[in-house]
């Protein structure tokens, strides 16, 4: 299958998914840096988001922020 697939075709398949994943990571990073207080050290969350792929960003959105109350 791979032989018939050119590089361009491969990128048209994978491109949108990778772009979306990158977008999620960037949003998580921006939120992480701009939020007032994170649960635990901020640099730890930056590392988790950068190296945790999809799971890292999800974890940050669920557990990372202190609720403003």
């Amino acid at each position, binding site marked *: 299958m791979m032989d018939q697939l050119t590089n361009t075709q491969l990128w048209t398949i994978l491109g949108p998914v990778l772009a979306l994943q990158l977008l999620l990571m960037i949003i998580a990073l921006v939120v992480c840096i701009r939020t007032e207080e994170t649960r635990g050290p901020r640099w730890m969350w930056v590392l988790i988001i950068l190296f945790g792929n999809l799971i890292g960003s999800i974890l940050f959105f669920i557990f990372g922020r202190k*609720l403003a109350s």
Partner: protein
Amino acid sequence: MTQWFVLYCREWLELVRSYKLIWVPIVFILLGASQPITTYFLPEILASAGNLPEGTTFEFPVPTAVEVLAQTLGQFGTLGVLVVALSSMGAISGERVSGTASMILVKPVSYGAFVTSKWAAMLTLSTISFAMGYGAAWYYTMALFEAVGWREVGGSLLLFALWLGFVGTLTILFSSLLRSAAAAAFSALAVSVLLSLSASMLPNAFAWSPGNLSKLAASFVMNHTAEGLWLVVLVTFCAMAAALTASAAVLRKRPSLDAA
């Protein structure tokens, strides 16, 4: 009704502020898109994984398009359910701890409206996210495998969205019963796992159980029809109504946690 709508709009504002409106749909789309793509590239992935003797050839039965969609539903059944439960776990307990709930409930707002506005917002978020994710899966299945009719996709989408909504309703119920958000998410997940397990172990005794919903959705996309569908849907609706009533009743008894 206008009052309920104001509460509902407040829940939307909350979804925007907590960024749920952004990350939950993106996560569902990524989940939905990754399953057809991984299935499509599986032979190459295995071949490049190495440590196979030279000249090994794989003869994989290429899965049909509907099988890929059914597998995607299985993926949503684990990670999707987890995301729904975790994203709505603090719905009521969080506001009770922070005191927002008692601040709203001293105003002439009915407890039912308070709970159902949260429930409706959860339902909208989970349904929209799941529809987008399933749509992405459908798109990639069409592009990489073959076409699937919209009837099968639509029917299974509704059935599975109902299952996600049911899990979310459970989370809201436990969120009003328990103080801790994590405990609420854990209890809701445990109950949903028990329901699916009991439904698959004893299919005859639990033919009515909402735990059948994910299985029904998968069989609907494969066979265009599912047996005993309406009974399960009816029971699920009744269970959701009962859970919301119970949740409002608990809240009426203990509006804030200071007294408890």
